[in-house]
């Protein structure tokens, strides 16, 4: 998912929003989604996120992460109510409660929470340049090594994605033969049902994993050849906003956080 986000760089207002301000908003939303507040309240926060994402990134981009977590959401709907049958019954068979109101509400809460967390991370990572991320972490006094590793890890995701595409192409060509529809579809994971696609993607994912592991020593060499590990302070080619622009973004972030916290206090 992150790879898809990184692959679609944009120039929306969210992309230009200061990463430090975005980090404040990220943290606020994360805390809110974990608070034991009413479900409809969480739903409002999720709606706000969807609205913001829809306005700045478009509906298609907003639905993308939700589509990706859809199988998990379906599992939550199917599995949560049977394991939480206490409270008012909603569906009973011969006196046995299968679905209760509280079980259904719990499923709904988990769905809203999981979707919200996914979306907020999607917005944060997807609209922030990896180089700016590292600067933001350093601004918050995160240890340099941690910032670098995190930035490199995030920055490396598109590489893995590109590797996946290449390996998929290689499999597609190599296993394509007359009468080998299954093999070809393995390299065309967009066809068929979700579980079928997942099952068929396994050979490609395995190959990507092997290649990625094989590349670890080379990546380490490449990093050291670029000076990672030196004792001198590292400077930065990229910069974050300063002056009025930074203050404005900071004010927006703090106002949003204050508004969200106030809403929790007013509607507990």
């Amino acid at each position, binding site marked *: 998912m992150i790879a898809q986000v*990184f692959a679609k760089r944009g120039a929306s207002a969210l992309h230009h929003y200061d990463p430090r301000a975005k980090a404040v908003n990220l943290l606020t939303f994360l805390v809110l989604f974990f608070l034991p507040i009413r479900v409809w309240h969480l739903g409002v926060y999720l709606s706000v996120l969807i609205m913001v994402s829809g306005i700045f990134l478009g509906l298609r981009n907003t639905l993308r992460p939700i589509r990706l977590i859809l199988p998990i959401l379906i599992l939550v709907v199917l599995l949560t109510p049977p394991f939480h049958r206490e409270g008012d019954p909603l569906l009973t068979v011969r006196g046995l409660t299968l679905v209760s109101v509280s079980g259904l509400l719990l499923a709904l809460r988990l769905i809203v929470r999981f979707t919200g967390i996914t979306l907020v991370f999607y917005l944060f990572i997807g609209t922030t*340049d*990896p*180089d700016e991320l590292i600067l933001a972490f350093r601004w918050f006094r995160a240890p340099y090594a941690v910032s670098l590793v995190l930035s*490199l890890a995030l*920055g*490396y995701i*598109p*590489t893995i994605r*590109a*590797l996946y595409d*290449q*390996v998929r*192409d*290689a499999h*597609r*060509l*190599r*296993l*394509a*033969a*007359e009468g*080998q529809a299954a*093999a*070809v579809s393995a390299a065309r994971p967009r066809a068929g049902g979700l579980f079928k696609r997942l099952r068929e993607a396994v050979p490609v994912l*395995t*190959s990507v994993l*092997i*290649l990625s592991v*094989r*590349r670890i*020593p*080379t*990546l*380490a*060499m*490449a*990093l*050291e*050849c*670029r*000076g*990672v*590990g*030196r004792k*001198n*302070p*590292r*400077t*930065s*080619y*990229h*910069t974050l906003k300063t002056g009025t622009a930074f203050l404005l973004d900071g004010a927006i972030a703090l106002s949003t956080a204050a508004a969200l916290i106030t809403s929790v206090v007013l509607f507990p």
Partner: protein
Amino acid sequence: MLLARPDQGKTTLCRVLAGLIPRFSGGEIKGEVCLGPIRPLDREPYELIDQVGLVFQHPGEQLLTSRCDSEVAFPLESMGLARSEIQQRVTRSLRSMDLERYRYQSPKVLSGGERKKLLIACLLAVDPHLWLLDETLEELDRGTKRQLLELLKDRRRSTLILSAKWHDIFREYADLVYLMEEGQVRPVREKPGTRDFHRLLLNRGFVLPGEGSVPDQPPSLARAHTTRGSKTDAGILLEVRDLFFRYEQGRAETASPFTLSIDRLHIAAGKVLAIIGDNGSGKSTLGRLLCGLLAPGEGEIRIRREGVLQRAEAQDLNRFTGYLFQDPDLQIFLPTVFEELALGLRHLNLPAPEINRRVQEAVALFGLPAGDAPPSLMSYGTRKQLQAGVYYLLERPLMIIDEGDSGLSTDDFSQMVRIFRDRERALIFITHDHRLAGALADEVLELKAGRFA
């Protein structure tokens, strides 16, 4: 200039000089390496970046960031240079390698040769005392080769160029030439370009311009028009008509994204076609279109099926065309040579004895190690041979070899072309080596900015 046929230890030597071996590989090392007063074996590689700069043989392994300018800036940030200095150096280096237009683009959108140019731009920005170029010139077009060699000459930096081939252009720039054989390095006393020098290299298994199977003159491109203009379809295996392709996202910071436009192209059974062109001219894009990995925006590709030329969809092309990627590692995944070669045959449901027979045949033809050898421990050139062996066994009517001569000696590549040359099939190979194209192909086409010249 250090010349060595594949598998002689060029990359190992480079990595020893850069302080990477044995640090990352393990192993035993004796003796000393001295770079002036510095001993790389006693230092960490990151301490040496302003002393020694290395460009890996496979550029994809060395790229770390998501933007070309960030890539060039990365080592400068490590060195702790001021931002203004970094900006200046980044701009200057990108401009020197004609990459300014890709400044804000991801290195992923660059072609193989352009990625090498980006890595050279990184070295230009740092400007270390010793440059180590591990087969870096192999995937560069002739103009870029000359440009780079001129640039290095002007900078008066010590440069060690490692190559599996001798190109004429080296004669003007190489101060010293060494030969590496079986792990041993020895100086060549004969003056580069002289008859004695050529004789020595020929004796050592190098194929030279004007000698053996490779002529001295660049190929005639006139024959290409025959291929594009013929009106008879007898024997034609694949035909392209009014093909147009445009990348969704621009490859460069230009108003119009890269486009490929081919009015007409066909290849007949038994023919070998070479495609040459500068880095980024669309050679690999054309290859990917012909094997169905990319879908054309307009026009059509037709292939011969059941004796008739028919419009081909992506899946048809997947089955019809074999495509050897530039990087063999993207097509090799399994633990042993045997498993790798047998995979496609198993998908064809062949009986085990037949699979064994065919695998043994491929092992012998491509000079591969025993079937239980692990590909991950084989040299780059041998992995390329294995990659070719895999597709040889699949018996596709059309084969495309994308810069297969990179990392292979000229005669090894010539042998590969001879193996794939078949009266019933056709072969297209993409190369920067004009002479090799002229020598091995029946016809040569040159791509320039997405159009045939």
